[in-house]
């Protein structure tokens, strides 16, 4: 048995599939693909798969992955091909690789947020402040006000018809920051914009290299 990761994208309509529904989708996709994924044992056996990093409802992604164990002989190319055949067009398969890193070595994710805003300067100004305070739910359910200024990496704002906000945020089992939290905080500061789309571009390790 070996551990592999299947990398795929989630585009267009697929963004309306919630994480919970993705899970059920994957179970059925594995079944239709005929890929010898290891099943759990017991009363109600099902394919054992884990999502590297759950994606919020409404987000697109260029780089998402699931991990599973393969029983028996099948090349990564063939596995990828089989998934390609059963995934919808809105979820193109990038490929299959043997796991290089452990899931806990995932540290960051990069995002592109496309906005419509009349006042670009207001957005610039928001990110140039000394601190950026957001409300964040802790694991215990209480809400904390925290400064996340230091946690935003590689921030950039470009304009090309719409505004594009690029940033790298902590992601993974230890720390996680969802860009929606920042957008909510911006709204509270009366920064005016509408969200056109949010896309998670890449998953990254501690050195900002691609997570594989």
């Amino acid at each position, binding site marked *: 048995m070996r551990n592999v990761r299947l990398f795929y994208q989630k585009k267009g309509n697929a963004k*309306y599939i919630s994480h919970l*529904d993705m899970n059920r989708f994957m179970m059925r996709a594995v*079944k239709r693909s005929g890929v010898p994924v290891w099943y759990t044992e017991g009363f109600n056996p099902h394919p054992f798969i884990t999502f590297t990093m759950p994606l919020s409802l409404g987000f697109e992604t260029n780089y998402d992955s699931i991990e599973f164990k393969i029983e028996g002989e099948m090349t990564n190319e063939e596995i990828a091909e089989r998934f390609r055949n059963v995934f919808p067009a809105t979820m193109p398969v990038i490929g299959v690789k043997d796991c290089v890193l452990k899931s806990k070595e995932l540290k960051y994710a990069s995002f592109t947020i496309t906005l419509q805003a009349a006042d670009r300067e207001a957005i610039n100004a928001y990110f140039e402040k000394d601190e950026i305070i957001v409300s964040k739910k802790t694991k215990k359910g209480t809400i904390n006000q925290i400064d996340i200024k230091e946690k935003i990496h590689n921030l950039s704002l470009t304009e090309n018809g719409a505004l594009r906000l690029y940033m790298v945020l902590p992601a993974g089992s230890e720390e996680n920051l969802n860009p929606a939290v920042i957008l909510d905080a911006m709204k509270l500061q009366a920064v005016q914009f509408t969200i056109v789309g949010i896309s998670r571009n890449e998953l990254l390790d501690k050195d900002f290299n691609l997570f594989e």
Partner: protein
Amino acid sequence: MTDLEFSKLVENVQKPGRYAGGELNSVLKDKQQIAVRFAFCFPDIYEIGMSHLGMKILYSLLNELDYCWCERVFAPFTDMEASLRENNRALFAIESRDDLSEFDIIGFTLQYELSYTNILNMLALGNVLLLSADRAGLHQLVIAGGPCACNPEPLCDFVDLFVLGEGEEVTAELVSLYRQHKLNASTKDEFLAAAAAIEGVYVPSLYLVKYREDFSVESVAPRDSAPAKVRKRIIKNLDKVFYPDRFVVPYMEIVHDRVIQEIFRGCIRGCRFCQAGMIYRPVREKNLDIVSQQAKCLCDTTGYDEVSLSSLSTSDYSALEPLVDKLLSWSEQDKVSISLPSLRIDSFSPQLLDKISKVRKSGLTFAPEAGTQRMRNVINKNISEEEIINTCKTAFAGGYINIKLYFMMGLPYETMEDIEGIIDLSQRVVDLYYQNPDKPKGKSVQVSISVSTFVPKPFTPFQWAAFDSAESIKAKQQHLLSYTKSKKIKISFSDKETSFLEAVLARGDRRLGAVLLKAFSLGCKMDGWDEFLDFEKWMEAFAACGVDPLFYLRKREYDERLPWDHLDYYVTKGFLQREDEKAAMEAVTENCRQRCSGCGADQGGGCSFEKR
């Protein structure tokens, strides 16, 4: 609608997956190449509609035709409806996201009387004129079918034609006819006249209904060449009828999220209150090899890991054990589980029961329907108290601790003793639990009883019966509660306003069209949902139209002309009357496998059991 417009529309909507589409096996076509665009409308939300087998069948069947594109439309939930209005958008079909008004044929399925206002709401949200008479062209033809089409009279103002009976053949014929007439640029009247010649098609505008002074129906006169009686369609051979080789597989969870495999139509039992048991006659079984093949194919194309066998009473399939063995021959290897709903456990060998993993241990439901043997004889529910007790015994021995029992009250010929019988029986089940020597320690039994109010339905032996009065139901409910001694018995009643409206609409006539329209204009919709039903508005609508709802709840005489008498579901009125008379005498009728009781359904052919 662009993707951006769509995403704006669903921005604040709770479950965008209800409207997003793109599911596995959903069908996209190039609309330029399509002659007939068909909107299959389910007047309830996505999760409910997508669970419906009839929709799956017709969706696949229509999309097999190269000239037709069938798309799906569901009732938007309240948040989506608000968003549609706010954004000034019309209700649209899931596949193309085109407005409902762009469709040639707009077809509704009538599963439940309380979905009628949703039909009006969907048309209105789709910018389609509500009244059939106002829609002049052939375009936007509104059609409807399904069980409630057996008395479609309350909907006659809105619907251009109804499809009676089983839809596979007749829908295809209808769409083909429509295509010809569209090509020839026929008028709507020309098309409707031609459609009325198809067996199973009822065009209400071709019938003139006259009422007596007391508002009962005096006559129903067909115009032109329309048949005096419209017969429902029957599929004679279930082995040959179209069955989909794929289902649309939703991403979000729906009510029945699995492969549904039909095994037979009709029911051998003949319970006198049950409309399904009468209007789906005759009994026709599907060959077990075909059942197995179809189920396997559906698992392969959907990836589902569960198959649920579908029929009105699974245990009555003549070859159930061989069928389950056949299914298990591939399902175990494919890691697919088989579930058998509406199963009578006592009729099943424990070994086989063991193999079926999906018979869950959490709870067990059972429907004695009435509390006393006398009353069960009246309704022809041929289950004895011993059978019920034995089933519960097996269940307790198997570790079940929650039993759910379904009963009805307000049945014809009912007395207070029958009401007490509900509790006596439930109490016996509780006592039985404590007599079980192996009962799990530290756990206690719960017997939940759900008591619904009986609603008399057309084409049943009780179609003439009165709907029990509000006072009488109240008295019975109170008595039931005060008669209950054990805390282990949990009682729930059906909503009285829901049953009331259901009863009015089920046996209604065309005069209810105005009431429906008024109720809708007052804001009534989603009436099947307790939290949305606004009974006062309905009463206001009845009053505004000068229609007394109680008129529809009264007992009818055998010689009264019933509003649906010009429709023919094969089961004869003579048979129904005989059954009602037997009910009054507490006499039971044997099931179809024991003895054919000459219901008339074999006239259409295909009955598996009638004596030849």
